[in-house]
């Protein structure tokens, strides 16, 4: 039944495929492929893994990621159990609070924990958060608990509560019910969240670099160090290959456990829960959330206002209006803010346009197109900024394709990192549309392309906007790829924060905190304003 005629719909398909593929090939597959080809020589593998420090870095990467994701899962479970099983006044606020860290740039979170360390004078104590594995793990839990909470709050209400009630009438204790009835049913949601958390902590860059400092190295930071400081590209490429393997493995696992068909969300009345949650537990939960997720931001804010002469906006003034200490002339923080906003917007546009086209292909009527897209178009989702930046650095550097020094390569890279998210969120939203609606449109005379434009697009617009907002936040806070491609005359907010933190003095430190606060506020504003419906559920990643 294949119509070989170039119908308008087929033409649209062709244009879509070609444009997306071209973009992907130039800016994604070619750079990544370059890493593979540079690193895939026997000698470089040998060289890389005889190095003791690299082996240690690999080991550290693995164990901190494991512990971070495991703890995130446990803490996420505890928090979710209260959210899912009870209703109370500030629940929405607290839920939102647990999600904020996830959209926050890594530099902001690192700054926040540095400021906590400062304020509480933890340096030298066992609880020291700077330059320690503890600090890294805590920061990672800070980021990734929200993934677990988000997944569970959407999947937990859907499991069969009647089985819990049945177990209760058969005499099972609370604990038993949880471990033998509830947990097995939550398994797939937990595995999906855990694999994502592992992926993010494995490829974590900003936190390790800034919070971990010189003494803590992971595969990601070593790629950066070998590529930019030592210009030893082969070793960096080998590490990149290791990274890629882990990414592919985690994405595969995550894909297997993804619960995509959530068409029916039955809102169960609270009466149906097997056990209600005690007031004490609710209180402990709320205090923990406020403390763990809220406190670091408050401290960050406080540190940004705390000058040697008392609390004031001095650092903000210095940042935005004066060039502070002559000794350490930073290249225009105003420029950095402007650049970040402009490039972030550009990246958002790129991510949305390419992401929508990708979503169109992912949900295409033609099985082969959607299958092919599903495999290739979602790859950027897991690839880290460092890998992409490194790839672009060593590939797009000759002749006609010498893009790496162009100003627009950074928003393109940032946009590419966001494409996967927009594509995934959009295609999930499309899948939720009742197929009969499309059939109806079809029988009323709408071609494939018109169905896409008149039916799919308007219906998923809310989700797409949320995805765009998120890709903007991602671009604003992007640090990994930018650190490879940035030029001093064209700074971004994250690289400026990083530079400020690297220089001594209370003034530069204060300014770093202030800039982090500014970045955090902009990010939070954008995401909360555009994601009104709260549709950024982690099932969508």
């Amino acid at each position: 039944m294949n119509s070989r005629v170039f119908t308008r719909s087929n033409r649209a398909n062709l244009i879509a495929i070609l444009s997306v593929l071209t973009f992907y090939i130039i800016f994604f597959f070619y750079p990544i492929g370059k890493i593979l080809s540079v690193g895939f020589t026997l000698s470089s593998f040998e060289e890389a893994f005889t190095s003791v420090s690299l082996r240690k870095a690999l080991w550290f990467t693995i164990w901190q990621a494991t512990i971070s994701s495991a703890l995130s899962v446990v803490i996420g479970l505890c928090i979710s159990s209260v959210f899912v099983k009870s209703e109370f006044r500030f629940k929405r606020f607290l839920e939102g609070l647990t999600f904020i860290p996830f959209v926050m740039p890594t530099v902001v979170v690192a700054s926040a924990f540095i400021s906590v360390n400062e304020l509480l004078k933890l340096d030298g104590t066992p609880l020291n958060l700077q330059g320690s594995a503890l600090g890294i793990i805590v920061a990672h839990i800070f980021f990734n608990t929200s993934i677990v909470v988000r997944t569970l709050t959407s999947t937990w209400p859907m499991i069969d509560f009647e089985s819990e009630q049945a177990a209760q009438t058969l005499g099972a204790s609370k604990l038993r019910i949880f471990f033998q009835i509830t947990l097995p049913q939550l398994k797939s949601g937990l595995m999906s969240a855990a694999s994502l958390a592992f992926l993010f902590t494995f490829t974590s860059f900003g936190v390790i670099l800034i919070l971990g400092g010189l003494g803590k190295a992971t595969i990601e930071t070593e790629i950066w160090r070998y590529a930019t400081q030592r210009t030893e590209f082969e070793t960096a490429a080998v590490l990149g290959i290791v990274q890629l393997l882990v990414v592919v493995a985690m994405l595969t696992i995550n894909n297997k456990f993804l619960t995509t068909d959530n068409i029916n969300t039955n809102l169960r009345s609270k009466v149906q829960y097997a056990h209600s949650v005690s007031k004490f537990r609710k209180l402990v939960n709320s205090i923990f959330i406020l403390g763990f997720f809220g406190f670091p931001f408050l401290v960050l804010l406080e540190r940004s206002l705390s000058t040697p002469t008392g609390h004031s906006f001095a650092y903000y003034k210095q940042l935005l209006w004066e060039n502070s200490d002559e000794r350490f002339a930073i290249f225009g923080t105003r420029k950095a803010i402007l650049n970040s906003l402009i490039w972030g917007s550009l990246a958002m546009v790129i991510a949305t346009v390419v992401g929508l086209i990708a979503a169109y292909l992912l949900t295409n009527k033609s099985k082969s197109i959607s299958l092919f897209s599903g495999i290739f178009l979602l790859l950027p989702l897991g690839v880290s900024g460092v890998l992409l930046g490194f790839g672009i650095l060593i590939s797009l550097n000759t002749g006609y394709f010498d893009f790496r020094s162009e100003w627009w390569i950074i928003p393109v890279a940032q946009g590419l990192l966001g494409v996967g998210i927009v594509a995934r969120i959009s295609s999930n939203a499309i899948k939720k549309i009742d197929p009969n609606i499309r059939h109806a449109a079809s029988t009323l005379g709408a071609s494939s392309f018109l169905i896409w434009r008149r039916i799919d697009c308007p219906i998923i617009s809310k989700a797409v906007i949320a995805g765009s907002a998120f890709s903007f936040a991602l671009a604003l806070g992007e640090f990994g790829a930018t650190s490879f491609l940035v030029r001093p005359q064209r700074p971004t907010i994250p690289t400026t924060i990083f530079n400020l933190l690297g220089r001594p003095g209370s003034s530069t430190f204060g300014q770093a905190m202030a800039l982090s606060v500014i970045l955090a506020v902009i990010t939070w504003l954008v995401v909360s304003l555009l994601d009104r419906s709260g549709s950024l559920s982690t099932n969508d990643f």
Partner: protein
Amino acid sequence: MTFNGLKISEVSAELGGERVLQSINFSLQEGNVLALLGRSGCGKSTLLKVIAGIVSPTGGQIFWNSVDISMTPAHKRGIGLMFQNNALFPHMSVHENIRFGLEMLSVPKAEANDRVVDLLELVDLKGFGSRTIDSLSGGESQRVALARVLAPEPKLVLLDEPFNALDRALRRTLVDQVFEILSAKKITSIHVTHEGDEASLFSDSILIIENGQIINEGTFAEIIDLPVNVLSADLLGLRTVWAPDAEFRNQKWSLLTPWGSIECGGSQSDRYQLLLRPDHVQISNDGLEAIVTKVFYAAGQKYIDCRVGNIKNLTVLVDTNISIGESICLSVDLDSIEVLTA
């Protein structure tokens, strides 16, 4: 000579690797109504989707007015489809929903708007144009769906049990209304339903499908008269059908009823059941003993269920006062018992 209407020729279809339709053949005269009866999962929805072009068949052809439309894409066939859940576009108003088909035909806006208003009046929804979809009641959504389907003036309308979600009274009203409109506009239609009585109201012919194959076809009267197989009888609500004890002897089946045995030919692998209609059972003193198990009414008529012989629930039409537990005598003319294939 060209045939005016729909002709389905040797159509087969697969869903998810499984054979759902097997060599379906039938014709439907233009302007007529066909009722498609069958159990759930028998393939009737799939057949509609194949005709509409939403599902591709694995074989066979579809003709409209003798033109082969098998290769025409769905959005060019001009065949309307009404769904079980209406499938109204949630992001558009009532007016926009109905206008959609006209937009696809590039009808100028002013003209399209006028047609929408006319259609709203036709389905008794005057003034509903600016309403949102989620503010409509079941019946109202139904009628918007009808208006939407009619707007592009399709030659053929397929209805996939669209009245399922409605209560009985509403359903009755809407069915009447829909078919009144369809017949006034002389639109050919196929109606999938599992309500046999409803089919009798409006259909010119009936198709009964089981396991992707047509097991009976004809007018309602024809099938009622001669159901031929058990499923048809069930779907049309015929009683009483039961599986008798049977013996296969001398290349013939002997079916044992309390009133005697009936013989019929066939092979050993055939299975038969018997049909005894309520009005063919008489209460007389020289009949067999039966115990009344139930007393009930249907469409105002009084019936009783009895246990007689090895028949657990034999339905009898009565007009006297009989109570449960009473013992009565029933006699039956063996010739009036019909044999059905199972």
